[in-house]
């Protein structure tokens, strides 16, 4: 397929300097965000609640009018186009299935002007895709939360959206279901080659589904990278905290405590600190144990670093009752914080 690209350049979605304020002169929910999504890519927007990720999504969908900035699709400005003309699909956290329609009625909602037989076939095909074949006549109140989300996804895909926007689609589900459905969503979206933005506050979910992960903080997009780049090179301490990568320690302190030379500050994620059970030697420090717990069969202790902050350490035996342990550092597991050098 040949895409005709407008003067804005870029194929796919291009968000340019978008700002959203809910009150004129009030704080910006989205603050000057620019973002490009190439056709067929799946990106996740990760952020704590209130970071502006949902507002950004709603502005892209056209549900919120931005104060400034533009939304372009294939180079064409769609900022003034009403929601129902944008051709962007949207799926909510709780599905928002229409309660007075059955499953088929929901999935077929967007398929107007299609002969009945073809519509029925298309609905069946979509339900098959999301693993809900044969559920056509079921009332939406009768199906479970996970099934409702599958139906909501089928409904959104039915319209063949140019861009699919998923607003925390798995947040209302329990953990086991969430990881299974996250993998399914990735497979379904892939199989239809739909360009997708997936908003979530759960890093596991973001890493599981996305080609690229964007991190939002206080209305700004602070980093956009592949999952592995993001994990290994978080842009700042806030990203480290969002990813749960432990405390950030300056280079001088690393040299002082562990005798390790690093360039710039590093984060100490689980696995970077090891409890040494042998004799104390160079490159080790003795620290106080704050608490210990069993995580998936392995003991993890929470230790108090010399400056008083807490970090997680693993390895070693019989440490669950110790008051003090000796720590050493695994340099390969350290995470370098800040812009890449």
């Amino acid at each position, binding site marked *: 397929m040949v895409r005709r690209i407008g003067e804005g350049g870029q194929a796919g979605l291009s968000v340019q300097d978008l700002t959203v304020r809910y009150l004129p002169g009030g704080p910006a929910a989205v603050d000057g965000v620019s973002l490009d999504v190439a056709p067929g890519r799946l990106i996740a927007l990760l952020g704590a609640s209130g970071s502006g990720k949902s507002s950004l999504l709603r502005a892209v969908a056209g*549900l919120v009018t931005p104060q400034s900035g533009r939304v372009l699709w294939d180079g064409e400005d769609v900022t003034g186009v009403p*929601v*129902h003309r944008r051709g962007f699909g949207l*799926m*909510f956290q709780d599905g928002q299935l*229409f309660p007075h329609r059955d499953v088929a009625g929901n999935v077929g909602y967007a398929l*107007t002007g299609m002969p009945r037989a073809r519509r029925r076939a298309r609905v069946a095909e979509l339900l098959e895709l999301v693993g809900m074949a044969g559920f056509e006549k079921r009332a939406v109140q009768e199906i479970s939360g996970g099934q409702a989300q599958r139906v909501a996804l089928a409904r959104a895909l039915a*319209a063949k959206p140019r861009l699919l926007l998923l607003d925390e689609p798995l947040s209302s589900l329990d953990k086991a279901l969430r990881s299974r459905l996250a993998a399914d969503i990735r497979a379904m979206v892939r199989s239809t080659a739909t360009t997708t933005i997936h908003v979530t506050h759960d890093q596991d979910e973001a890493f599981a589904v996305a080609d690229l992960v964007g991190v939002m903080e206080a209305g700004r997009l602070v980093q956009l990278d592949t999952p592995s780049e993001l994990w290994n090179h978080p842009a700042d301490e806030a990203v480290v905290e969002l990813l749960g990568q432990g405390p950030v320690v300056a280079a001088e302190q690393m040299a002082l405590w562990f005798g390790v030379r690093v360039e710039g500050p590093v984060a100490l994620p689980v696995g970077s600190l090891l409890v040494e059970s042998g004799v104390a030697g160079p490159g080790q420090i003795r620290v106080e144990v704050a608490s210990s717990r069993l995580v998936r069969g392995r003991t993890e202790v929470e230790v108090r670093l010399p400056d008083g902050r807490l970090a997680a350490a693993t390895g070693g035996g019989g440490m669950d009752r110790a008051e003090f342990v000796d720590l050493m550092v695994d340099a390969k597991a350290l995470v370098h914080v800040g812009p890449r050098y």
Partner: protein
Amino acid sequence: MRSYRPAQWAWRACWLAAGLVAVGFLVVFFAAPAVNLVAQGFTDENGRPTLSVMVQTFASARTWRIIRFTIGQATLGTLICLLLGLFGAHLLYRVSWPGRTIVRGLVSVPFVLPTVVVGVAFRTLLAANGRLGFLGLDGSWQAITAALVFFNYSVVVRTVGSTWAQLDPRRADAARALGAGPVRVWCTVTLPALAPAIASAAAVVFLFCASAFGVVLVLGGTRYSTLETEIYTQTVEFLDLPAASTLAIVQLALTGTCLFLSGRAQQRLQRSLGNASPGPLKFSGRRDGLPVAVTAAVILVLLMAPILTLVERSFQLGDAWSLANYRALMATGDDSGMATSVWQTLVNSLTTAVWATMLAVGLGAVVALLLSRRPRSRWGRAGLSIGDAAFMLPLGVSAVTVGFGFLITLDRPPLDLRSSAVLVPIAQAMVAIPLVIRVLLPAVRGIDPRQREAAAALGAAPWRVLGTVDLPVLARGLGLAVGFAFSTSLGEFGATSFLARPDHMTLPVAIGRLISRPGEANYGMAMASSVLLAAMTVIVMSIAERLRPPEVTSW
């Protein structure tokens, strides 16, 4: 690039047009009559502004006696309703026992009965030859109070009961665990939690008592009159419009105050009731003995006796069983001054009710949809909150005031509807519209706004969003709304008695006419027509109640 502006403006223009129609109706048929009515009280015969009418009215001892009687009567009625209703609320909503649902239904019947019917029923019960004639209460003020309690008992039971049913029982358990006895638990835990509901019920009952018209007119005769009946008497019998206007102003002030207090109480209702969904209590003879005794007495003596006596007597002529009263409905009655037969007025009532219902439900649905919008602009939001209050206003204004306002306003150009048959349906629709909105609005407001967003994101244009998201929800409340509007219109007496022409009376007005004339035959016909009217209202309401969507609670 294609512009979407024209389509958006067209859509907004549609809403604006709908809003203008609704507001226009309210202005012409509510605001204009009300303003004109107030103005009448402050002008002399030549149209010059004056306070003399006001001064004259308030200088008269009769005025003060009527105001005192209205307020005293309403206060007493409210207090008795609360006292009896609390026992009923406990028994019918907090405690579980077989047959509870049936009794709940039974108790709610009086509220929907037409006022004239209740008046006739109480007169039949308390007349010298009635079942309770030995009490000697015929034509007394106690009879009026009893009838007011009859009407409004179920309001207290329902309002307080539905709150009581949601009360988290663990709060009382916590108090008991801290050493409080049953009385202390009730006073310190249960009563404070129920207080907002009690206050709200009290305000509504007071409003209904203070603006009761049909009951007082039928039972009070010439001895007792309230503001409502006095407005009617001054207008229809003494033709003293200025005096009637001043009384109507007093009535407006009284009901306005009530409505304001009721709104305040409603706001306080938001108080948390605890978050458990408690099951009802098991029946216990020791705790529930007194409520059972009180409620049984209320149901038998106060609620059932008048209705059963009315039905019984309507089938009697002299001392013999007979269908003569019903047969007489085909004729115009003894010297009753009626131009048509009662059957004809029944047909009139039904046609009027159909028109009034179509008008009230059609307009009410438009208003409910309008008020459920969530505009983003500041002007839109301001307009919405004004509209919200404006369409509830007629609920607080008595039907007599509406009828009287119509009479003095719509009788000359630019709008002369005096001789037009549309006046009565419009007046009845005005009385019914607030009820319709109260039924429809909560359901439409309850729609998650993201439902509309989801539909739009699937490519649905605004009109399709309205048709596929809003209308199905609205339609579920429509049955109840139609029922409310139809039965309100069917039994409407206050406004209609001002406006119905003698050759085109409605059934309640005909009953009012029959009962005010001497003669056993007229009285028999009044009883027979009352039974007929009551039966129709109860049937309409019980069908409507079945269609009640779960979101809607009455009052």
